[in-house]
Every structure is written in structure tokens, then in C-alpha cells.
């Protein structure tokens, strides 16, 4: 009987220490070489990178032509990206054919816009309400007067046919943002309205616009607006796509805003009513500030989409940034095997910087808001 009882008399051998998880080497091993399959995958990916990266870097940096008077050097065999071409064409990419002596006006408009946007987006800035009023109310007419010219105050007229490049891309984006914000809010309110006529009309507009490609909206604005309006009222060549883009963006914005409105609890409406606020007053002071804050990430994503979609205005003959790049690469002085790639890479970097910055900003706002809610 006693033999069946086992009493351990010596301690068990100490277990081996776990692999270091805090050190860099330990983490690398755990993530990259955890078993033969993971190791094989890592090696395959590293081999692929080793195959792709060196030629890419050689093309973009080491073999690139940084300064040249014309395309002669860029056409040499083995030459990489022709950055000299970008440097030489940069004014054209920025202003299009805007007359050289008047280009300071574009600079002023862009600088004003940059200041206002930073003020508006910097959440800790003082008096952001003033920035909003300036950006949505004062900035558009001032920019229009500066860009288009006002002979009465000594600014000669610059026809919109001459505008181009980054100026037009930013213009289309800003007009889209400035119009789509209020119009989107109105459409969202209309869709939620208790009046059936209003809600059906809003829903119909939103769903139709969201269901068709932007190109067809641009085609429509370009070919049908002149048919709808009398000859003397026909909007000019640049205004037509602007109207199309603004309407298109409004429909998408309306859906984002509607999501925010849905997230507001009923009690907020009732509280506002209990305070004796009317419809517009409760909207302005209680409902919209909360609803819009909820959907800042969605709003920013809509802006990113809008900014990328500005490239489509080229279809109706507007020289936006991408179109100027696409046109400049055919310049016979520079034409060569690397010019197309150089131009597109430069344009891609431009759009990437803007869109990536916007998406990071929306992430930052999202994180800050969730912190504020006590998570």
C-alpha cells in the first residue's frame, strides 16, 4: 500500500527561461522566424524586396538627372528619372497658363487658403468659429475677385481659360468642399424631414447621384447646362464642371452627415425643445455640433475622395494638375523614355502627400474624440 504513495522529495529541474520577448532580437524572432513556414515567407519577401528596391532607388535617386537645360541628358541610355524636367515645368504645373505678371495673386489666394485651413483643422486653435466664417463666407468671394480679377480695384481680368495646374486642382477641391458641406447638411436634413415631398426629393437626388459615375455627372454639367439655360446665362467652361463636382460631392456628404444625425439621441432634440429652442436654433446650437463631430472621419474621407476625383475634370477639357503633367510629358524638347514615368511619379507624390496627410488627420481626430469620451 505504502508503495502506491508517491512523495516527491527533490524539486523539479527549473524550466528554461522563456525566449526574450522584450529585446529587439527576441521580438524579431517571434514575428519573423516563428517556425519554418514563417521563416520561408520572410525570406521570400526579403528576396522580392532585394530584387525590386535597388532598381527603384537607382531610377529615382542615384541615376536620376537633377539638372539639365533640356531632355538631352535624360535621353541618355541608363538615365533615371528626369527631375530637371519637373523643376523646369513646375511653374506650369502650378499655375497653368496664368499670365506671369499676375501670378502673385494665385500665391496670395493659396497662402490665405493654407492659413485658414490650418486654423480650421487645428483643434486647439483659438476662435475656430471665426475661421469657419472666414473660410466658408469671406474666402470664396475674395479669392474669386483675386483670381478672376476686378478691373474696378485695378486687378486686370484673367480669363478662366488660362487657369490651370495645381491652382485648378485646389480650386475644384475647395469649391467642392465649401459647397458640399452646407448643401450636404441641407440634403441630409431634407432626407430626414417629416415632409414626404422634401424627403423623397432629397433621397432621390442623393441616390441618383451616388448611383452614377462622376464622369457622367461631368458630361451632364458640360453638355446639358448650356441647353437648360439661355445663351447669355450659360456658365463658362470652368464653372460647369465646378457645378458638377459640387453637386456630386454634396450627395456623398449628405449621407455622411445623415449618419451623424442618426447617432444623436432623441433626448437631445427633446432637451432643445424643453429649452424653448426653435428648429433652426436647436439645429445650430445643439444637434449639428454633435452630429458633425461624430462624423469628422467620414467627412475627411469624403474630402480625400473628392480631391482624388478632381482629376476627372480633365474629361471636359480643364487643365488640372494631372492634365498639365500629362500634357507636358509630350513636349518635344523633353520627350524621352523616362519622361512619362517621371511625370506620373511626381504627380503621384503630390496626391499621396495630400491624401495621406488628410487620412492621418482623420485618424488623429478619431483618437482624440474617443479619448474625450472616456475610453
Amino acid at each position, binding site marked *: 500500500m505504502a508503495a502506491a504513495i508517491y512523495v516527491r522529495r527533490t524539486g523539479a529541474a527549473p524550466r528554461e527561461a522563456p525566449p526574450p520577448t522584450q529585446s529587439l532580437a527576441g521580438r524579431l524572432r517571434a514575428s519573423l522566424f516563428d517556425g519554418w513556414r514563417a521563416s520561408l515567407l520572410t525570406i521570400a519577401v526579403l528576396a522580392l524586396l532585394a530584387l525590386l528596391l535597388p532598381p527603384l532607388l537607382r531610377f529615382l535617386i542615384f541615376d536620376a538627372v537633377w539638372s539639365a537645360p533640356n531632355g538631352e541628358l535624360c535621353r541618355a541610355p541608363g538615365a533615371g528619372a528626369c527631375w530637371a524636367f519637373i523643376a523646369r515645368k513646375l511653374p506650369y504645373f502650378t499655375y497653368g497658363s496664368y499670365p506671369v505678371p499676375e501670378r502673385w495673386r494665385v500665391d496670395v489666394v493659396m497662402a490665405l487658403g493654407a492659413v485658414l485651413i490650418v486654423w480650421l483643422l487645428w483643434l486647439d486653435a483659438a476662435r475656430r468659429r471665426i475661421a469657419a466664417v472666414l473660410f466658408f463666407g469671406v474666402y470664396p468671394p475674395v479669392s474669386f475677385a483675386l483670381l478672376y480679377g476686378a478691373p474696378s480695384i485695378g486687378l486686370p481680368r484673367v480669363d478662366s481659360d488660362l487657369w490651370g495646374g495645381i491652382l485648378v486642382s485646389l480650386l475644384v477641391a475647395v469649391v467642392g468642399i465649401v459647397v458640399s458641406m452646407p448643401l450636404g447638411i441641407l440634403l441630409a436634413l431634407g432626407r430626414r424631414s417629416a415632409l414626404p*415631398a422634401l424627403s423623397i426629393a432629397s433621397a432621390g437626388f442623393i441616390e441618383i447621384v451616388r448611383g*452614377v459615375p462622376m464622369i457622367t455627372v461631368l*458630361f451632364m454639367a458640360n*453638355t446639358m447646362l448650356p441647353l437648360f439655360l439661355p445663351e447669355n446665362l450659360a456658365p463658362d467652361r470652368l464653372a460647369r464642371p465646378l457645378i458638377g463636382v459640387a453637386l456630386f460631392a454634396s450627395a456623398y456628404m449628405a449621407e455622411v452627415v445623415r449618419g451623424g444625425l442618426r447617432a444623436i439621441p432623441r433626448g437631445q432634440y427633446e432637451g432643445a425643445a424643453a429649452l424653448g429652442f426653435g428648429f433652426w436654433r436647436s439645429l445650430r446650437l445643439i444637434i449639428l455640433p454633435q452630429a458633425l463631430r461624430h462624423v469628422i472621419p467620414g467627412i475627411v474621407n469624403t474630402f480625400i475622395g473628392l480631391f482624388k476625383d478632381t482629376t476627372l475634370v480633365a*474629361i471636359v477639357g480643364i487643365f488640372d494638375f494631372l492634365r498639365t503633367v500629362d500634357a507636358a510629358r509630350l513636349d518635344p524638347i523633353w520627350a524621352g523614355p523616362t519622361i*512619362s514615368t517621371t511625370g506620373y511619379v511626381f504627380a*503621384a507624390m503630390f496626391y499621396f502627400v495630400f491624401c495621406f496627410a488628410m487620412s492621418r488627420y482623420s485618424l488623429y481626430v478619431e483618437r482624440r474624440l474617443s479619448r474625450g469620451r472616456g475610453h
Partner: protein
Amino acid sequence: MSFGESAARPSHGWLWLWYDARARSALLQILFVAGFAALAVAAFVDVRAHMQARGIPTDFSFLGNVAGFDINQSLIPYSAASSYGRAFLVGLLNTCLVGALGLTFATIIGFSVGLARLSKNWIVARCAMAYVEGLRNVPLLLQLLFWYNAVLKPLPAPRQSFELPFGVFLNNRGLFVPEPVSQPGALWVAIAALVSVVAAIGLRWLSIRRKFASPRAAFFSGVAAAFVVVLPIAAFVGAGSPITFVRPELQGFNFSGGVRLLPEFVALVLGLSLYTAAFIAEIVRAGVEAVPRGQREAAAALGLTAAQASRLVVRPQAMRLIVPLLTSQYLNLIKNSSLAVFIGYPDLVQVFAGTVLNQTGAAVQVIFITMAVYLLISLAASLAMNLYGRRFALRER
């Protein structure tokens, strides 16, 4: 409430219409509808007058007229002597073709990249992230122009074309792939394939219906897989290899035989799938990450292996989130295929809203038809989505 309102109502005149909430809302709506209708009628009359003054057709009869232009890719017989209506069909089918191929590739790439982003392997996750951020922050049009103008157009002429595996050739005239040609017995192979797929679906249905336990379910899946693989191969061999592939051959300055895919087509499918895949990858990642960790832990506690937990616990829950968002990306891809017009691929917009509109001037009708096509596709998709949502909605007690 009603007491207060009736007290505030003035006793005379028409003003009560404004002070009574219901009367006011009715009044406002009538005014709104009347104004809208007046505007629409005015616009209609005005446009009609404009169009008649410029000699533009005001009805749809122009669709029967001879088109008089060529289209360089067509799935149905088409020539310059065909009608505008036929040109519309050609464009529509080309859009469908690009859409179908784009959806397939975008789904495959998107799911792979999305799962790679979730990988524990640091370098794989980083590469997937670089792909997503790099592609979705650059306009699709720019990517299309890059693939077309900077990659496919400067390719060498047919004589120096790149030779890819399986008899595929790539040069500045496009992508040349072998063409499957069916001989008399091919019908049997098709029937065998159909039968095996139906049998496999039936077996799977039976196994779900009877709630078979794991080993039996696995056996049934094995049988189903064997059906799908063995039966068509047996039919293929039995009928004496009735499907052959004609490889493209270099003859003189160009290829003959095989199927030629236009560079425009290749650029469009490539650009659309790579771009949409970046968005699908993000959706897949978000869907999988949204499944609480506790679900996987509970599966482990029940004794499921990691693979079983992924297949039986995580995937069904993730798919419920993924599918609706995936649908909207699919719709985006189809709408974005209209960018074909920038690189000259003959899709619906390029052929119909481009060439036909320019030739006939019938802007209103052409744009109406084009928009209606895209709207119908969107409506069909959202209808399917509602059905899916109803079928797979969480049933809570």
C-alpha cells in the same frame, strides 16, 4: 398643445393656414412640388426649343441610325454599318467584361493583401500596409495613365515581345493569350462539369441540412471535391481531349492565332483591380479585427484548432461585416470603369456618352440612358444586399 394652437389661431383671414402646423406643412409641400414641377417643365420646354433650333433629335429614334464609326473591341458582331443602338450594346458588354474581370482580380488580391496585413509576420504586414496606403492615396486616373502611357505603350514591338509562361506574349500591341478551341466532344466535358458542380453543391447542402458531425462532414467534403475534379477530367479524356489551345504565333510583324487583349483593356483591368484591391484589403482587415478576441479564445476553450476557429467562428462573423462594404466597393469598381474614356478603351461611356453623343448631339437622351444603366446596376446590387442582410442578420433572442 391643441388648446394652445387653437388659441393662437387668428379668427379671420387666411393666416390660419400658416399658424396651423399641419396646414403649413401641406402648404409648404404643395409650394415645393409646384415650384419643382414648374422648373422642370420650363427646363423641358427650353431644352426642347434649343435642341430643335440646333437640329438635334428630340426622341430616341436616332438609336436606329447607322453609326458609321468602328469600335476596336467588340464581343458581338459590329461594323461601321451597324446602328447606334448596337454600338450601345457593344459598349455595355465591354463595360461588363471589364467589370467581371476587375471584380475577380480585385477580390483575390484584396483578400490576400487584407489577410497579409493581419499577419503576425512583421515584414509581410508592413509590405501589405505599404501597398494599401500607396495605392489608395493616389487617384485612379493617375494609375491608369501610368499603366497605359508609361508601362504598356513603351513596350517593344511584336518581334521583341516578352514571352511569358503558357504561351502568353506581351508587346505594345497588347497581351496575346492562347485561345481555347472546342472540338465536337466538348459538350460532354461541359455537361460533366455542370453535373459535378451540382452534385457537390447538393452534397454540401445535405451535410449542412443533416448537421453532420465533423468527421462525416469532412468525408462529404472530400467526396464533393473528388466529384468536381475527377468527373470533368474523366469526360475530357473519355471524349478524346476535345478542347485545344491555339497559341499565338509570330507571323511577319504581328501575331496570329490566340486572343489579343488590347493594351487599353489590360491597363484598365490592371489599374481597376489593383486600386480597388487596396480598399477591399482594408475592409477585410477591419472585418476580421472587429470580431472580439473572446470569440477565438472561446473556440480554443472548446477544443477547436486555430484553423477550425478561423473557419468556423471568425470567418462567418467577419463576413457579415465585410459583405455589405464589399458590395459598395464592387459598385465603385463598376462606376470607375467609366475612366476607360481617358485611355480610349471602348466602354459604355467612351462609345455612347462619348462618340455617339458627339455625332448625334442628343445629349439629354444619351446621358439619360447612360445614367439609367449605372443606376439599374446599383439598384440591383442594393436589392441583393438587402436580401443578404435579411438572410444573415444576427438573430437575437
